[in-house]
């Protein structure tokens, strides 16, 4: 460890000052276009997604294999993984600036939410509300119509991670989770619990690669002596310690940090149970594939409504936490602990990709307080987390019983000591 005290308040030197003309020219110049990754699936267009073998449009995901299956000829195929297709796993340590894939671009408030398609099979006009679905049946000829082009309303992401757990497996995990928590569950919840009401939902996330440097400053203490003094009947331990000014810097890259892309899902205030859905992360995002709306047939989806700028503070917060975890092992000599007082994060470069990730979601609204409880299953890894409404009278009774027993034991000890 080198002796390298750093003054956090000192600004970094970034070259000689510019002349007034240069400053004005820089202020008036057009903003530099941000680098981007083009992720539009060129092999598809809005309208009919046909089976490459027989031409049928009855195509959907087969969860047990993670592949698209044609319901007419049983042909199975899948889209390419975006990791290799767009080079998302490479060059994180050389990232510069903010690179945003086309499916994660800013949402335009004037972008259409409702699209009208002309069915290529029969010519009928079919309406799709992209806020809730990206597929629709032509009501005349029964063909399935799909939204495949990236509209600037956040509905079509760069990539999708298909469901792997079947509905039955999702129900089984939800049932097992709830059955372990029956004794103190709210009576009405137990009565109304129907795990078969589970919904398969694709939730929107921003998946981020980033290169960053974090720095921390604070105080650390090392114990130099410990002794005991007698005060009357009591023995009191005293300590002596050296106080140090401590600084740490660490450079690191993160690969596929996953952050909520929906403002509703990103609200972790105490009246919500969105932390439950957050807790089933991470997903195996390396296996995400290029967008194809056929993956969503039979599932619901939630539209992304957060832009990169809105999520950037969350990214910085998480990078600061990751940096703190990385420097923690270097603090071993401070046996009385370290109190960090200042911190700084410099994000050298970041790459943003929007993805739909698969969740089996059971929701229950508790009538007594209006709270929405979730039991969520990660439809890739099977990780399950949930919030079960509790019966307050039962809980208080249990607490009172344990308290009474302990108090009885304490009383018995006191009597024995007397």
């Amino acid at each position: 460890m080198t002796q390298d005290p750093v003054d956090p308040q000192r600004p970094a030197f970034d070259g000689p000052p510019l002349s007034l003309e240069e400053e004005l020219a820089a202020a008036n110049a057009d903003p530099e276009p941000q680098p981007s990754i083009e992720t539009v699936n060129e092999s598809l267009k809005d309208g009919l997604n046909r089976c490459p073998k027989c031409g049928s449009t009855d195509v959907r995901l087969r969860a047990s294999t993670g592949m698209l299956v044609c319901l007419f000829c049983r042909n199975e195929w899948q889209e390419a993984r975006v990791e290799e297709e767009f080079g998302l796993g490479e060059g994180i340590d050389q990232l510069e600036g903010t690179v945003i894939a086309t499916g994660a671009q800013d949402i335009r408030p004037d972008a259409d939410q409702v699209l009208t398609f002309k069915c290529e099979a029969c010519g009928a006009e079919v309406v799709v509300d992209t806020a809730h679905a990206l597929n629709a049946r032509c009501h005349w000829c029964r063909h399935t119509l799909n939204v495949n082009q990236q509209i600037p309303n956040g509905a079509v992401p760069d990539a999708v991670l298909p469901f792997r757990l079947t509905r039955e497996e999702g129900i089984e995990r939800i049932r097992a989770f709830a059955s372990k928590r029956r004794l103190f569950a709210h009576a009405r919840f137990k009565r109304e619990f129907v795990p078969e009401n589970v919904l398969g939902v694709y939730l929107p996330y921003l998946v981020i690669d980033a290169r960053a440097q974090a720095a921390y400053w604070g105080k650390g203490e090392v114990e130099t002596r410990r002794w005991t003094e007698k005060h009357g009947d009591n023995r009191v331990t005293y300590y002596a310690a050296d106080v140090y000014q401590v600084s740490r810097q660490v450079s690191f890259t993160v690969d596929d940090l996953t952050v909520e892309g929906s403002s509703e899902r990103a609200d972790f205030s105490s009246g919500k149970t969105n932390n439950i859905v957050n807790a089933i992360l991470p997903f195996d995002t390396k296996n995400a594939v290029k967008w194809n709306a056929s993956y969503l047939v039979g599932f619901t989806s939630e539209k992304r409504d957060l832009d990169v700028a809105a999520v950037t503070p969350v990214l910085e917060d998480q990078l600061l936490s990751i940096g703190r975890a990385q420097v923690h092992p270097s603090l071993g000599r401070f046996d009385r602990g370290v109190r960090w007082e200042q911190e700084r994060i410099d994000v050298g470069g970041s790459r943003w990709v929007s993805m739909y990730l698969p969740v089996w979601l059971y929701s229950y609204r508790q009538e007594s307080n209006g709270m929405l409880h979730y039991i969520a299953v990660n439809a890739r890894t099977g990780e399950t987390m949930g919030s079960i409404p509790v019966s307050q009278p039962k809980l208080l009774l249990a607490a009172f019983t344990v308290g009474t027993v302990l108090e009885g034991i304490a009383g018995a000890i006191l009597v024995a000591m007397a």
Partner: protein
Amino acid sequence: MSPATGLDLITAVTTAVITAVVHLTPALAQASDDGILWLLAAGPAGGVATYWAIHRYYRNTDKSHAYERDTLIDAQPPQGGEERIDHIARTRDSDIDGDNADKYRQRVQRVR
């Protein structure tokens, strides 16, 4: 209630009660007036701990994605320094005030 259910719950409650009792043990050892007061507090403390443990087991309000651990991170060795600036000759505190070395998500003053 299945046997597994009962076992999970008993484990959670026992852990909470043991935690409460362990905190009371030093006071008990002193056997002073303070110790008697602490011993009498065992009942309320155990009750609160039971409530808290069961509530947490059912509602999972403390759970979230452990991104510090579950993300692919490639880090260089940490750099930095330490300089002795003071000496505490006598204190009853066994550790530093406001130790946040392992509270990774607790934000401190941000330097821009």
